[in-house]
């Protein structure tokens, strides 16, 4: 039974696309069939973060309009053959994204994949509401910072009211993914702690991704961090989060930045 996930946040720049790519690759690592969909029509970036920007021929809007068949638009990842990308359109009008069109595409993807991960654009406009519309579960990406937490709260409200599941009176599973976390700054009282964010948003925690230079390095080279440096602290945190999504019970650790640097040195020596 396919699971449809939306990766959302309200605020921009908190790590939705990075997290979609990293979790998609982590879930697909064992051969599980995963597709990641970019819903940011006009400002697509998931293709770039995944290193597939030069392979885009058809996109989500083409499929919705009937210009292309779904298999023609899907891009298979070169590193993981069970990982696929459905890119957003870069030029076309946002209104081309229709509720019925998205429903049809997701239904078709449900037949072929185990996980369908919808990368939401920032904001609460059409692209964002359609990305969450058919989701079974949501990952809310939050930075430990006031504006991000406020916007996450707003998005949680929308998830509980505007999704198909919510309208049917069912509960949509919500998971909080805290990114760019610095345990040392939180310990010094300079940054909201994990407990602060959890208490304010009262949503179960999926994972804690530490602030790390590995994340920028991964996007520079066009590879999900879970593939570019699987031993780094953020990659380990994403792998743990992916295993939790699959239902495994893994104790939550707060990864530290130091471990990331150590692992990077270790990984280079090993390579």
């Amino acid at each position: 039974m396919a699971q449809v996930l939306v990766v959302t946040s309200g605020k921009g720049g908190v790590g939705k696309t990075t997290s979609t790519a990293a979790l998609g690759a982590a879930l697909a690592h064992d051969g599980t069939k995963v597709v990641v969909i970019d819903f940011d029509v006009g400002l697509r970036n998931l293709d770039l973060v995944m290193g597939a920007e030069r392979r885009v021929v058809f996109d989500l809007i083409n499929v919705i309009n009937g210009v292309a068949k779904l298999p023609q638009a899907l891009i298979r990842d070169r590193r993981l053959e069970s990982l696929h990308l459905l890119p957003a359109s870069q030029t076309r009008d946002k209104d081309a994204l229709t509720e019925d069109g998205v429903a049809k595409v997701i239904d078709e993807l449900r037949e072929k994949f185990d996980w369908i991960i919808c990368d939401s654009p920032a904001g609460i406009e059409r692209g964002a509401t359609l990305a969450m519309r058919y989701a079974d579960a949501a990952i809310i990406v939050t930075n430990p910072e006031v504006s991000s937490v406020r916007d996450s709260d707003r998005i949680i409200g929308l998830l509980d009211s505007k999704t198909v599941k919510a309208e049917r009176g069912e509960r949509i599973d919500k998971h909080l993914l805290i990114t760019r976390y610095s345990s040392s700054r939180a310990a010094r009282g300079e940054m909201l702690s994990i407990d602060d964010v959890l208490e304010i948003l009262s949503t179960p925690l999926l994972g804690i991704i530490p602030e790390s230079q590995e994340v920028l390095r991964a996007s520079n080279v066009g590879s999900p961090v879970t593939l570019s440096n699987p031993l780094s602290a953020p990659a380990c945190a994403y792998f743990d989060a992916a295993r939790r999504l699959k239902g495994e019970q893994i104790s939550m650790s707060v990864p530290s930045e130091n471990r990331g640097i150590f692992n990077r040195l270790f990984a280079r020596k090993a390579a």
Partner: protein
Amino acid sequence: MSLFNFFRGRSAPIARERLQILLAHERNAGSHSDLLGVLREEILAVIGRHVSIDPDRVQIKMDRGKSVSTLAVDIEIPNRDHVSGGAPRYSSLTFEPGRDLVRMRGSGI
């Protein structure tokens, strides 16, 4: 680190408190985000059935307090006896949901 810097560095508790207060308000407002707009339309419709009013001369505002929020509705009603000159005569409705009380005052009605 000096004592001053030590306390200055701990800004997270301030962030936490500000968020808690803000979100408590926003979550309340979220369920009826256009409450004022809806009230304005409905109040105008009711009053408009009995007296003629100018929609531009209606002020609706809400003050959110800790235990009581007040909704103040000021509707200016033209007085037929005073076509020109004289002080404008108002009728004003005050509705305070926390106390379940409706007061009316004014001379135009």
